[in-house]
């Protein structure tokens, strides 16, 4: 939170506190004044009553119709004042709570936007910088063949990285506005096996275990969407990991078709579990970040899951890592 928003928060709490104090004070004052007015009126009636009948007793006086009515009115007014004050305070609390909530949401959104700008800047410029440097080195230097090949490979890796990023950006833009899933009957086992084969090739160090039912499960779904879901979840499990990555993919048919993808990565703190599917959300501070990314992956997953009419849940995996459960 910035200094300015902290100051605004501090000011609004101060104002709130003052309002409560002022309200309490005015309420008490009103009750006291009302009481004084009642006593004065009763005193007046008493003087008149004693003038009319000097023998009147206190009990008789209190039973007089106008005194009873005065007392009754006073009690009603006091209850009204207390009631009004209570309603006011409750409304004030509700209002402040709502303001606070939307204020926090605004701050979160601004932070997210800032994080996105930082990460996207970094993610776009770093591969560009690498490729440019490599090309300039080629222009400037005479290099031995081995060195040349090594640099060319690096340049290719960087351009792939750039390509992936551009794809993610385009995909998330498309998902927002123009995506219509193309439903067809697909044998899911095959699609998963195929995805894992592709992912295994690009992440040779990771271990990806499959546990599929013997009979091919056929679902009416969108190929591109399902592949994007699997790819993003598996790659996250590999990326946010300090162990040798091990990903388990389980497909079950009982009672409903479920796809469970779990990893042995660093896991997701409980406070972040509800936010990770937000667009551009990344856990932690972008300035001192261990992993590179844009906060688009899980957003893409969420949007595809919704488009396919499925649901997704996130849980802690034991002993470490995260478990995503997709129910079709």
């Amino acid at each position: 939170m910035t200094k300015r928003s902290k100051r605004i928060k501090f000011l609004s709490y101060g104002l709130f506190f003052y309002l409560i104090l002022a309200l309490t004070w005015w309420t008490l004052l009103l009750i006291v004044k009302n009481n004084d007015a009642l006593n004065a009126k009763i005193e007046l009636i008493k003087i008149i009553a004693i003038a009319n009948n000097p023998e009147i007793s206190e009990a008789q006086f209190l039973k007089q119709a106008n005194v009873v009515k005065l007392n009754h009115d006073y009690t009603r007014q006091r209850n009204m004042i207390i009631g009004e004050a209570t309603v006011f305070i409750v409304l004030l609390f509700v209002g402040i709570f709502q303001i606070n909530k939307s204020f926090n949401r605004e701050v979160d959104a601004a932070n997210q936007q800032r994080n996105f700008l930082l990460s996207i800047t970094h993610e776009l410029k770093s591969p560009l910088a690498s490729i440019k440097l490599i090309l300039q080195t080629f222009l400037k230097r005479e290099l031995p063949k081995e060195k040349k090949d090594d640099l060319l490979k690096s340049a290719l890796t960087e351009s792939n990285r750039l390509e992936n990023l551009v794809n993610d950006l385009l995909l998330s833009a498309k998902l927002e506005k123009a995506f219509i899933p193309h439903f067809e009957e697909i044998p899911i086992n095959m699609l998963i096996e195929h995805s894992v084969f592709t992912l295994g090739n690009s992440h040779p160090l990771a271990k990806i275990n499959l546990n599929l039912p013997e009979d091919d499960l056929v679902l009416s779904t969108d190929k591109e969407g399902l592949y994007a879901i699997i790819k993003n979840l598996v790659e996250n499990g590999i990326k946010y990991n300090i162990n040798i990555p091990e990903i388990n993919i389980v497909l079950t048919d009982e009672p409903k078709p479920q796809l469970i993808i779990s990893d042995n990565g660093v896991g997701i703190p409980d406070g972040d579990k509800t936010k990770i599917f937000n667009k551009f959300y990344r856990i932690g501070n972008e300035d001192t970040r261990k992993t590179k990314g844009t906060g688009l992956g899980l957003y893409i997953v969420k949007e595809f899951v919704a488009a396919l009419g499925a649901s997704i849940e996130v849980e802690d995996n034991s002993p470490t890592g995260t478990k995503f459960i997709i129910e079709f």
Partner: protein
Amino acid sequence: MRILLVEDEENIRKVVKLNLEMDDYEVVTTDNGKDAMKYFQEQHFDLIILDIMLPEISGLQICEQIRLTDTETPIIFLTAKDSPPDRVAGLKKGADDYLAKPFNLEELQLRVKKLISRSQKTPKLDMEYYEFGKNKVNFSTFEAKGVNGDITLTKKEAMLLKLLIERKNEVVSRQQILQFVWGYDVYPSTRTIDNFILSFRKYFEENPKEPQFFKSVRGIGYKFLE
């Protein structure tokens, strides 16, 4: 000339290192701030190139830390953050230059060359004779008349004495002494300098236990006062 390159993008690190090495610099690289601080404390560098977005400790923090003890070694930021406030923040932390990615290789080479040549203020050390208090030192014959008698200085003693006198009233850090007098680029953790200073006090101080000329500055280095 030695350069410390702190960059967490593997390919940028590789290519920048390659180019600087082809320009005859010795390049030490790391991808994180923790190691960067460690290398900085243990070794001599003529220039430091820092990325800003780094794991755990940001480049800005590293720069700030370095500037607490060393205001001379030139620092260049090499970063994807290129907005004017980012540049200002970087320069405010004590960097000498700021280069935004993607940058031109030649531009980096030129800036590195310029900053290094500008910071090479080797001490003049051409003085032949010096007097302080009741002491007289002749640097050409290595002979000295101290308050406690005549001494013949060793070559290293003479160099250290010259360096301290040259920087009169300034703190000279252990690193600077080790680099200049002993020519170490990687600093050994010896008590050698302490022993030299003890000898100086014995030669030149009236009361070596309460030195008037050769002061230690705890945790940083030594100071010659006159």
